[in-house]
C-alpha cells in the first residue's frame, strides 16, 4: 500500500465543500474519508466547528454541508483542511481496524422467474461469457462490504464484485427499476430500496426492506456492514415478500437476516 494520498477541496456551492481524496473506489481512500468524518464529528461536538448541517461520506470524498447564515467558508475551510491532513495520517491505522459492522445474509431470487426483477441476468451472463447459473454462483459467493449509502434512502453501494462479473453500467438507463432489484455495475452491487430510474444490470429480487423511518437508524445496511447473498426459489421469495409490510411497520429492522452467530450490537 502506498501512502501517497493527498486531497483537494472542491466547491459545492455556498452551502457545501467537498474534500476529495481520490477519484476511484479504493479502500485506502474510504479509510481517509471515514477518519475525516469521525474527526469533524468530534470537532462539531467540541464546538470547534459550528454551522455544520451534515456531512456526507462517499467512497472517495467527504462533503461538508453548512448553513451560510451561521458560518462562512473562510471559517470552516481551514479547520477542515487541518483535520484532513490529520485524517491522512490516522487513516492508515484505521484501515487496519476499520469498523467491522454486522454481517447480513440476504435472500435473492435470481433471474426473471418472478416479477421482472432479474431481466438482465441472461444478457450479463452473455457479456461475461458465462452460463447464467455461474453468474448467480459467483454473485452469491462473495462477502461484500457496504462502502457508502446514497442515491436513494437506504441504497447501499457494496463491493467488490468478482472481477468476472464486472461490466460498465447499461448504455440505456431504465426509467423504472422495481423496488427490491438486485443489481450490478462496474465493481459494485446494490439493492434498489425503492422504484426509481436506474442504469445498473438487474440480476434478481431481494424481499427484504432496506429502509424504514420507524427503525432507530432507518437504514438496514450501514457503511462497514458486510453482506452475503443466498439464492432462494420463487416460493420462498413469495413467502418473504408477504412479510415485508410487517417489517416496514416494526420498531426494529428485521434482524432475522443477520448471518448466523451475529449478535445484535
Amino acid at each position, binding site marked *: 500500500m502506498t501512502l501517497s494520498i493527498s486531497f483537494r477541496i472542491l466547491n459545492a456551492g455556498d452551502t457545501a465543500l467537498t474534500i476529495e481524496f481520490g477519484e476511484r473506489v479504493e479502500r485506502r481512500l474510504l479509510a481517509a474519508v471515514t477518519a475525516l468524518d469521525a474527526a469533524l464529528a468530534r470537532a462539531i461536538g467540541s464546538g470547534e466547528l459550528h454551522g455544520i448541517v451534515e*456531512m456526507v461520506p462517499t467512497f472517495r470524498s467527504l462533503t461538508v*454541508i453548512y448553513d451560510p447564515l451561521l458560518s462562512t467558508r473562510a471559517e470552516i475551510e481551514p479547520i477542515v483542511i487541518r483535520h484532513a491532513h490529520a485524517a491522512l495520517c490516522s487513516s492508515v491505522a484505521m484501515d487496519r481496524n476499520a469498523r467491522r459492522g454486522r454481517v447480513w445474509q440476504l435472500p435473492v431470487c435470481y433471474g426473471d422467474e418472478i416479477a421482472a426483477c432479474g431481466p438482465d441476468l441472461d444478457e450479463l451472463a452473455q457479456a461475461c461469457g458465462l452460463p447464467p447459473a455461474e453468474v448467480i454462483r459467483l454473485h452469491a459467493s462473495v462477502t461484500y462490504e457496504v462502502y457508502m449509502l*446514497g442515491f436513494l434512502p437506504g441504497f447501499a453501494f457494496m463491493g467488490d464484485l468478482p472481477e468476472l462479473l464486472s461490466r460498465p453500467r447499461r448504455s440505456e438507463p431504465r426509467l423504472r427499476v422495481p423496488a427490491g432489484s438486485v443489481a450490478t455495475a462496474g465493481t459494485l452491487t446494490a439493492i434498489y430500496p425503492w*422504484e426509481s430510474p436506474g442504469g445498473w444490470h438487474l440480476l434478481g429480487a431481494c424481499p427484504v426492506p432496506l429502509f424504514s423511518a420507524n427503525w432507530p437508524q*432507518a437504514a438496514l445496511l450501514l457503511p462497514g456492514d458486510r453482506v452475503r447473498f443466498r439464492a432462494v426459489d420463487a416460493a420462498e421469495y413469495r413467502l418473504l415478500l408477504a412479510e415485508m409490510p410487517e417489517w416496514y411497520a416494526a420498531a426494529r429492522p428485521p434482524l432475522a437476516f443477520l448471518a448466523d452467530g451475529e449478535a445484535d450490537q
Partner: protein
Amino acid sequence: MNAVLEIVSPGALASLQDLGRPGFRRLGVPRSGALQPDWLRLANALIGNAEDAPAIEFLVGGLVVRALDSPVQLALAGNFSAAVRSAGGRRCLDSWRSVTLAPGEALHCGMLSPCRVGYLALLGICVPKQLGSASTYAPAGLGGLDGRWLSPGVRLQVGEGSAGEQMLRTAPLLDTAPIRVLLGPQEDYFTAASQACFLSEVYQVSSAADRMGMRLDGPMLRHRSDKGVEITSDATVPGSIQVPAQGQPIVLLADGQTAGGYPKIATVISADLPRLAALAPGQRIRFATVSVAAAELAARASAARLRALIADIVPLAAVGVLDLQAMYAANLVSGVVDACALDSAIWPATPAQEDWQNPRSSRNSPREKG
C-alpha cells in the same frame, strides 16, 4: 378547536412540505422541503403559524380545497390568483394574503405563472413528522400523509380559523437577474468552450421539471475527452448542476438524489436556488459566476429581504383599494394569471359574481419574464 380542509383536486401535483429534513443525506435521504422556502415562510407568517410549519405546495396550478364543517383560515403565496366559491356566489382574490373559508366554501387556485410553485398555508395544521420533518418525499413514502402526494378526498386536520385576514403590503419582487453559480465541483471535466458557453448562453427550463430536478434546454455541454462523462459517485446538494453524457444540464432540487455519477459543472448559490426551482417550463435564464464571499453576502441579503417582507404584513382591512392599485402599478405582482379572468374558460359561469376586489380585471395575461 379542530377543522377539516378537504383536497377537492390537487391540480397538477400537490404535497405537504415544510423546511425539510436535513441530517440524513448520509443514509441517502434528500432534504426535501419547500422548493421556494421563503414563500412557505411568508404564507405561514400571514396566518400566524410558525414559519417552518408544513403547508400545501402545489405545482402548475389548479389546486382546489374546501372547508368542511368549520371555518378554515389559510394564506396564499405564489404568482396566482384564486376564487372562493360557495353556493351563494364567488369572490376573487389575489395571492400574498390570508383568507377565511366559511364552512362549505371552496378555494380554486388559478394557474401559476411565471413561477410554477405556489403555497397554501393552513392555520394550525397538524401533520406527524418523520425523521424530523413533515415534508413529503414520495419516492420513499416519507412524510406528508402516508408519504403520498395529495389526492382528491384527502382531509387535513387544521385549526379553526377566526383571526383577522392579513396581507403582504409589498409582494416579493420577481428577480430576473442571472442565476448565480459557483463553478464546481467538477468544472474541470468540461472543455473551456463548454464552460464559457454555460456562462454566456440562454437556457430554458424544460418540461422535465419536478421536485427532484429540472432539465434545461439550451446548448449542449461537452465533457473533456481525457476526463470522460462519468465520475465515481460523490455527494450532490440541492443546486448541483450535473451534466450526463449527452450534455443537457440538470439542476438537482429539494428531492434530488444525494449522490450521483455525472460530473457537476456548477452549483446554484443558496440565495438563487429558490427562484430557479420555482420557474415554470419555458422560462429563460442565464447563469453568472460569483465568488464564495459574494454568495454568502447574497444569502444574508436574501434572508434580510425575507425578514423585511414579513415585518410588513398588515391587516387586510387597513389596506384600501388605492394601495392595491399602487402595488399593481409598481408591477410588484406582475405575471399573475387572473383566476377570475380564467374563470369563464375553466369553471362554469356563476351569475352572482361577487367582484368585491378586482382592481385589475383588465390585466389578465401572464407576462413572460426572465
